[in-house]
């Protein structure tokens, strides 16, 4: 008896809510540094601030032990040019990464300068980063002295740069490799981070969703002095008073939801990724940027085959792809020989499609694990896939069912599952909070880290920027005091948060989510024009005016989902407003305006910013590379940087 229906049939009644109900009851917490979002960046921020001897509170909607946009594991520690095997300097690699238009040069520089120190600290805390058990002795890229496992990823150049030579033999010869990506045992990381938080006395508030930021005198744009939260199991209302606050929740998630029924099952990421922090910052008056940038969902749980829910395909990276008759496909695989691109050039796929239609290649395709050398196969299957976020359970299931990578070909779903529809989109393409060299937002007292910032990168970026933001926020908190909270601001937020539980009928969160998603699919997809975007904005405003007042929730969990919907509604409106403001198309932003078809005209080669001032939307702009000289700026802001932590 494990499903709800079985319980009902056996007991004759549904189970009671298992946690105490405390709707509206208040709990007040005073802290020096408040961190909202307990994923990779948030844990690192909390640890880093706590090391300065300050009181730290960490707020997490799920449970810190396995939470985060990156999921529960980590397969690669990317872009680590300071590691001893690297052939490139941190500043040079950061510069190379920052050559991508609309990237975040500040985050990239911090990542390249500090993520190796961060990795060594991860090891101090109990994370496994080396092949200490000699499991992969003899593997290419394994260094016998340090026992680090260098990955073929980003060998010659960063694989996000499409290079026509990628995939050609000898594109990535050993002497040209930069050695900047390290294979790690990342499933050990999150539990170790939570343990370290506890050891350092960080007060962890699991199952608490941040709902709003508190500002001095309750004024939009003023200093941030705390936050409110909702316990998503009990409905208790949390009031946090802080000297400095760090936002480290993920970016926006499922605004273009694919299946109208399945709230969690048809997204790129988990449903918990709903843009909470971005919207808290927005309402408080912080400036956001790149909000017009969205992308197609290439793969998602339930939408297509499940392998990674967020990234590539196991039978693509490192593993040669063959057709049904065993013929090798000309597809770059990011392996040692070819160092292919993360996403192959469209021409490559088109050529294979042509071959399929002509009978040159027979479907379905397979990942040819048996053709790999034993040690490379194990490193790919057990280490890369076994330690990645959501793939561990998949390889376990395959093994239990009798799959043996030394004997069997793993089916690839390329082509047979069809292309993604352009209406299936994702907001997680770089929109986020604007930050400066202290990772401070445009509001005093408020910092951002990880995928909360605009143009984030990967796991090691989240870790390094979290650690950095914790340090900077702690320095600020040491020199400032607590401020008096505005009771009016608290009351207004309580009224908003608990409105859905005061109703017992109306519209439930799933229908609201579906309604928002449909508007986005119709009016904010590949076809963007002034009039389509305006119809979309009006439709969202209509939902806000007519449907939101009837939103209802019957328990704290559904209240959390309802509040996430309200966040997504706001996020969706910002995407439209930012899209209206950019009157040009842009390739790197994946942004096509039918009424402004010229791609990347020079006068639009700039960041657009957006914020609220007196509750009115205000747009602005920043030039490309507005962060200045990355090396100089980093050094000017970090003269006191101590390197790897030596304290207790």
């Amino acid at each position: 008896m494990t499903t709800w229906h079985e319980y009902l049939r056996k007991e004759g009644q549904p189970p009671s809510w298992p946690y105490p109900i405390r709707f509206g009851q208040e709990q007040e917490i005073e802290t020096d540094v408040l961190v909202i979002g307990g994923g990779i960046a948030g844990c690192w921020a909390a640890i880093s601030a706590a090391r300065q001897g300050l009181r730290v509170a960490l707020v997490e909607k799920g449970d810190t032990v396995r939470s985060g946009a990156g999921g529960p594991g980590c397969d690669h520690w990317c872009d680590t040019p300071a590691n001893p095997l690297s052939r490139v300097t941190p500043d040079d690699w950061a510069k190379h990464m920052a050559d991508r238009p609309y990237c975040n040069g500040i985050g990239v520089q911090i990542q390249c300068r500090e993520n190796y120190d961060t990795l060594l600290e991860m090891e101090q805390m109990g994370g496994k980063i080396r092949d200490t058990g000699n499991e992969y002795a003899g593997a290419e890229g394994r260094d016998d002295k340090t026992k680090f496992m260098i990955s073929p990823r980003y060998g010659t150049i960063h694989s996000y740069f499409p290079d026509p030579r990628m995939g050609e033999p000898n594109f990535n010869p050993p002497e040209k490799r930069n050695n900047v990506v390290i294979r790690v045992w990342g499933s050990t990381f999150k539990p170790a981070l939570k343990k370290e938080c506890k050891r350092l006395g960080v007060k962890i508030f699991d199952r608490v969703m941040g709902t709003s930021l508190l500002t001095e005198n309750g004024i939009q744009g003023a200093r941030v002095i705390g936050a409110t939260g909702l316990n998503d199991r009990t409905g208790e209302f949390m009031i946090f008073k802080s000297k400095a606050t760090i936002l480290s929740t993920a970016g926006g998630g499922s605004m273009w939801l694919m299946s109208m029924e399945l709230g969690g099952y048809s997204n790129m990421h988990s449903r918990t990724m709903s843009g909470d922090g971005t919207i808290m910052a927005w309402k408080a008056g912080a400036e956001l940027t790149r909000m017009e940038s969205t992308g197609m969902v290439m793969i998602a749980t339930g939408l297509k085959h499940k392998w990674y829910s967020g990234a590539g395909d196991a039978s693509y990276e490192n593993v040669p792809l063959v057709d049904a008759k065993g013929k090798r496909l000309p597809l770059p695989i990011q392996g040692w020989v070819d160092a292919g691109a993360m996403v192959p050039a469209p021409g490559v796929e088109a050529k294979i499609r042509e071959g399929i239609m002509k009978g040159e290649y027979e479907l379905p395709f397979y990942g040819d694990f048996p053709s790999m050398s034993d040690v490379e196969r194990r490193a790919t299957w057990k280490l890369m896939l076994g330690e990645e976020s959501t793939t561990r359970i998949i390889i376990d299931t395959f093994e239990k069912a009798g799959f043996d990578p030394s004997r069997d070909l793993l089916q690839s779903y390329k082509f047979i599952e069809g292309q993604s529809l352009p209406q299936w989109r994702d907001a997680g393409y770089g929109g986020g909070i604007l930050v400066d060299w202290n990772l401070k937002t445009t509001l005093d007292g408020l910092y951002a880290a990880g995928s909360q910032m605009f143009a984030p990168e990967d796991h090691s970026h989240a870790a390094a920027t979290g650690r950095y933001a914790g340090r900077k926020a702690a320095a600020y908190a040491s020199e400032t005091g607590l401020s008096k909270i505005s009771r009016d601001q608290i009351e207004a937020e309580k009224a908003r948060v608990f409105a859905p539980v005061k109703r017992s009928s109306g519209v439930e969160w799933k229908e609201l989510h579906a309604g928002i998603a449909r508007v986005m699919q119709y009016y904010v997809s590949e076809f963007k024009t002034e009039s389509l975007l305006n119809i979309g904005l009006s439709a969202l405003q209509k939902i806000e005016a007519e449907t939101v007042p009837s939103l209802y929730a019957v328990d704290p969990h559904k209240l959390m989902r309802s509040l996430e919907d309200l966040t997504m509604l706001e996020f969706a409106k910002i995407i439209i407003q930012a899209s209206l403001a950019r009157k040009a198309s842009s390739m790197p932003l994946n942004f096509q305006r039918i009424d402004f078809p010229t791609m990347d005209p020079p006068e639009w080669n700039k960041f657009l910013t957006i914020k609220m001032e007196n509750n009115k939307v205000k747009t602005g702009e920043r030039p490309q590379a507005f962060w200045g000289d990355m090396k100089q700026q980093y050094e000017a802001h970090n003269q006191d940087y101590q390197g790897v932590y030596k304290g207790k």
Partner: protein
Amino acid sequence: MSQEKVFAIPNITTPNNPVLFNPEICDGCNTCVETCQIDVYIPNPQEGKPPIILHPEECWYCGCCANDCPRPGALQFNWPLELRGYWKNKKTGKVNQL
């Protein structure tokens, strides 16, 4: 024929059963309840019994609950039918499915 009482209940959400518990092995420690980021589960009102799957349609199949279960065999992942992958024996050409 079963003489059990028949209730009037809404359609069952699909997929409905992301994991299968083995009540012989599961001791109701609720590690999965705490590890799940979504709150797919709630603790069973009866102590020592496997949790109840309350929000199956919110599951994104990340696998945390199964990975971190301290009692091997207590909790088995149950992939929805449409997500059961295929493989092929390279020598014999026999195609298998999860």
